[in-house]
C-alpha cells in the first residue's frame, strides 16, 4: 500500500482504520447483545419512517401518530435497559440475575403495549 501523501487521504485512512477496529471489537460482543442491538435498530428505524410519513401527510390522527411513535421509542428504550442489565462486563448490575432483568423487560413491555393499544384508536 502506498503511503498517503495528502492530508485528506490520511483522514480517510484513519476513518477506515477506526471502522475496522470498531468492527473487530464489536465482533467480540456476545450474540445475545448483538440480537438486542438489532432489535433496537429495528425499532428506531420504524420510528424514523413514521416521522417521515407524518411530515408528508400531516399530523391528522395525532393520537395514532403519537402512539405509533411512542411504541417504537418505548420498545427501543426498554431494550437498551435490558442490554445494560444483561451485559456481563457491566459491574453495576452484577448482583442482578439476567432472568430477573428479562422478567422486568417483559412486564414493562406488556404495560407499554397495553397503553399504546388504548391510545391508538
Amino acid at each position, binding site marked *: 500500500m502506498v503511503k498517503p501523501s495528502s492530508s485528506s487521504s490520511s483522514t480517510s485512512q484513519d476513518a477506515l482504520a477506526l471502522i475496522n477496529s470498531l468492527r473487530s471489537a464489536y465482533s467480540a460482543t456476545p450474540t445475545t447483545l448483538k440480537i*438486542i442491538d438489532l432489535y433496537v435498530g429495528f*425499532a428506531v428505524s420504524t420510528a424514523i*419512517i413514521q416521522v417521515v*410519513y407524518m411530515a408528508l401527510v400531516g399530523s391528522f390522527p395525532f393520537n395514532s401518530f403519537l*402512539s*405509533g411513535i411512542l411504541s417504537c421509542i418505548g420498545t427501543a428504550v426498554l431494550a437498551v435497559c435490558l442490554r445494560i442489565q444483561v451485559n456481563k462486563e457491566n459491574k453495576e448490575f452484577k448482583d442482578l440475575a439476567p432472568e430477573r432483568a428479562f422478567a422486568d423487560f417483559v412486564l414493562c413491555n406488556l404495560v407499554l403495549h397495553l397503553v*399504546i393499544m388504548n391510545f391508538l*384508536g
Partner: protein
Amino acid sequence: MLKLLAFLTLSLPFLTHSFSPDHPTDRRVLVLLDDLAIKSSHSLFFKTLQSRGFELDFKLADDPKIGLQRYGQYTYDALILFSPTVDRFGGSIDLAAILDFVDTGHDLIIAADTNASDLIRQISVECGVDFDEDPSAMVIDHMSYAVSDTEGDHTLIASDDFIKSDVILGSKKIEAPVLFKGIGHTINSENSLVLKVLSASPSAYSANPKSKLSSPPLLIGSAISLVSVVQARNNARVLISGSLSMFSDRFFRSEVQKAGSADKHEKSANEQFLTELSKWVFHERGHLKAVNVRHHKIDEADEPAIYRINDDVEYSVEIYEWHGKSWEPYVADDVQVQFYMMSPYVLKTLSTDKKGHYFTAFKVPDVYGVFQFKVEYDRLGYTSVSLSKQIPVRPFRHNEYDRFIPAAYPYYGAAFTMMTGFFIFTVVHLYNK
C-alpha cells in the same frame, strides 16, 4: 230561539270585518273632528277611504260618549285626529288611551295646524315628532310657494320633496307638487322609526307670518318636515301632518303652479299623495307575512328535533305581501337567514322562485350548542319580518366517528409490528443460549 242565539254567537267572528293577522287592512276607523263642518269640507279624502271599504265613524272630539274600547276590546282599528285645537277629548280618550291604542298595533293619522293644542303636540312628541313651539308659527317659503292671484304671505307651499319609496307612496310617480299650509315639525334624530315623507325646501323656515322676524327662526330648511310617518316596532303606523287643510277638498281640487316654474298643473297632487299614503298607513300596502318556516336535513322531509354538527340542512320560508285584497308573493333578492348562537355562524342570502318561496341549504358549523334559525328582514316601508326558531346542535356520538382512519394505517402497522417484534425477540432471546 236558543239555536238562533248559538248561531249568532258562532258566526259573529266571521261577520265582523276587522283587523286580523290574515287580513291586516283596517276596517273600522274613528274620525275625531273639531267641527262637523270638516266632514263636508274634507269630504273627498273621506270618500276615497269609504270607497276602499272603510267604515268611518265621525265624532266630535269632545263628544262625552266616545271611547276606543268597550269591555277591553278595541272597537276601532284606526283613529284619525282631525281636531288640531282640542284640549281634552271627551269620553275615555286621553293621551294614554291613544298611546295604548298605538301600542296594541293600531294605526293613527294626526293632522295638526297652527294653534295646535298641547294635547296634539304631546301625542306627536310621543311619536317622535316635535312641532314648532311657537303656536302661531307657520312654514313660510319665499322660493317654492304656490303661485296664487294675490301675492299673500307665502305660507301656501308647493312641495315636491317626497321620500323615495314606492311602497309608501305607490309605484305611480307623483307629477304635481303637494299644497301645504300649516305648521312645520322636526323629527327626533335618535328615533329611527320616524320617516320624513314630505320635506320642506331648503329655503323654507318656520315663523309667525304676521309679525316681523326679530330673531333667526329655529326651524329652517329641509330639516323641517311637513308630513312624517312612523312605523312602530309592533308595525303600527302613524301619519303626522302639520296641515289639516292639505286634506281639504279645496286643496284636492286646486290647480297648482310652483313659484319660478313654468308648468301649471291642473290639479294638485294632494289627492294622490294622501290617498297613497293612507293606503300605506292603513296596511293596504307594505305588510309582509312569513309562513311555512321549515327546515330539515337534505333528502329528508321531517323537521328533526336536533341536528348534528356538519349536517347538511335546508331552510325555507314563504313570504307574502298584502295587497289590500289578497296576499301576493313577495319578490326580493335580499332576504337572509342566519344560523345564530350569540353571533351568526352562517349568514346566507335566500334564493327565491319569485312565487314567495325562499330557500337555501347550508352545512351546520362544526360547533355544538343551542342555535337559532333567524330571519331579520327590515326594509323601508315594509313591516318588519322577524323569525327565530331554536334548534340544538349536538356533537358526533362515540359510534359516529370512523373506526379506522386510512391515513393512520402506518401507525397501526408500527404498533402491531412492535408487538410482533417483541414476541419474536422474546423467543430468540430465550432460546439463544
